[in-house]
């Protein structure tokens, strides 16, 4: 009995995933529907997320500088603070922490909005007007998040490194030249694009989770609340899985 229920659920999940893939392909081709929505969504999901991402980056850079100076006492030259701060921010903490912050903000925003539209029949209304919800709602949000997560992450990386630099110079008595020497010593161009590629995939995952949970919300306010929570949790989990995936594939 349990096995047949599990089998049925697996079958339903696979069928639903297949439908989403078909809908996504069809929606991508419906450019006239999603294009007017793209720029407003880029602003909402990307530009409006900049303050929270930068706030996080400032303190990440600062703490990294302080922690690394604590670890490097005597055994390792202090200019390695610059190495650790820049490497950690560009390769890992910048993309992942920004992704997590945006999973909360963007994932919740998208799931709550689409969930409310679902339970108030606005999605049904779109369909009766012969407008695909995937083209009108999902595609511009997923594209906007995919394009804007790397932009926000790049800003967070820059601010994180600058914050670490500022902390090192003003609190740790490290000179700017020493910090830069450390930052440049092991720098590779790949450090930057690796982080940006990751963040683009995080954007795709977070927005897709938000849209999926929102479009399948059921049962009024409680259903929207559950969908929003699931979107954030699954978005964060997706970021961690993708982080490991890219580390295996690209490094």
């Amino acid at each position: 009995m349990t096995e047949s229920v599990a089998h049925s659920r697996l079958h339903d999940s696979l069928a639903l995933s297949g439908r989403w893939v078909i809908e996504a392909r069809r929606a991508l081709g419906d450019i006239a529907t999603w294009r007017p929505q793209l720029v407003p969504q880029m602003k909402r999901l990307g530009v409006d997320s900049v303050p929270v991402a930068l706030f996080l980056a400032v303190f990440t850079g600062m703490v990294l500088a302080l922690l690394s100076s604590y670890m490097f006492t005597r055994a390792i030259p202090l200019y390695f603070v610059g190495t650790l701060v820049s490497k950690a921010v560009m390769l890992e903490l910048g993309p992942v922490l920004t992704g997590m912050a945006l999973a909360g903000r963007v994932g919740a925003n998208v799931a709550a909005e689409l969930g409310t539209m679902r339970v108030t029949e606005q999605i049904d209304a779109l369909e009766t007007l012969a407008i695909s919800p995937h083209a009108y709602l999902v595609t511009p949000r997923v594209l906007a998040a995919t394009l804007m997560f790397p932009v926000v992450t790049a800003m967070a990386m820059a601010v994180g490194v600058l914050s670490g630099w500022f902390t090192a110079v003003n609190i740790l008595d490290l000179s700017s030249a020493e910090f830069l020497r450390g930052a440049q010593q092991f720098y590779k161009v790949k450090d930057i694009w690796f982080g940006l590629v990751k963040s683009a995939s995080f954007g795709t995952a977070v927005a897709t989770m938000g849209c999926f949970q929102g479009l399948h919300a059921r049962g009024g306010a409680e259903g929207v609340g559950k969908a929003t929570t699931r979107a954030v949790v699954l978005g964060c989990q997706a970021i961690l899985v993708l982080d490991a995936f890219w580390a295996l594939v690209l490094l």
Partner: protein
Amino acid sequence: MIQFEQVAKRFGSRQVLDAVTLAIPEGQTTVLMGYSGTGKSVALKHIVGLLEPDAGRVVVDGQVVHELGYEELMELRRRIGYVFQFAALFDSLNVAENVGLGLQRQGLDRDAIAVRVAESLRLVELDDAGVRYPAELSGGMRKRVGIARAIALRPRYILYDEPTTGLDPVTTTAMNDLMIRARRELGATSVVVTHDLSSAFTVADRIAFLYEGRIRQAGTVAEFRESSDHRVREFIAGRPETESGAGGRA
């Protein structure tokens, strides 16, 4: 023409529609009546393909709705205006944008859309409401915008889901007049789901009574009023029939 042929729909363990068979004639207003929760709105959603039947079929203009491909279904939906129970206006768009959204899909240019939106808003007597947002409107105004959005498409069919529920008597009368005017001016075939008897008697050419997942009676308004079916008489009287021995509602 819209036809329900032995349509069945189940949600979980609940059989909402059992074997609904009904023909909705062209150019008339057919009211689908019944107690709350008997599947009237579910039946309506089958017409535009928002739901698929578990058994049976819904045929619109000779096309079986659930067998249509994507493009054919979109084409069918362009011929149907749907007025939702709570209007289902898009919160992020103003009234004019709500009314004009479906028109963009019909390939109309910006000027033509503006003209059509103005005409539709004039028909529902909301000429000046174009720049307002749904949150700024009363329940009655929202429903009228919902009607304007449906008629802006110049549809062949208009489906109304509980158009007068929750409205005061004056606004209800205005809504009834609006439905009659929309049918007269556009010549659209209308299907109205309601349990509001006075509204049904005002707008209907024909009434179909849905009970326990089946059409219990379908006919003209006069036939409905004079029905000998005890379930229909109970519904019209608003109380269970006890003296005839028919008993109350199951």
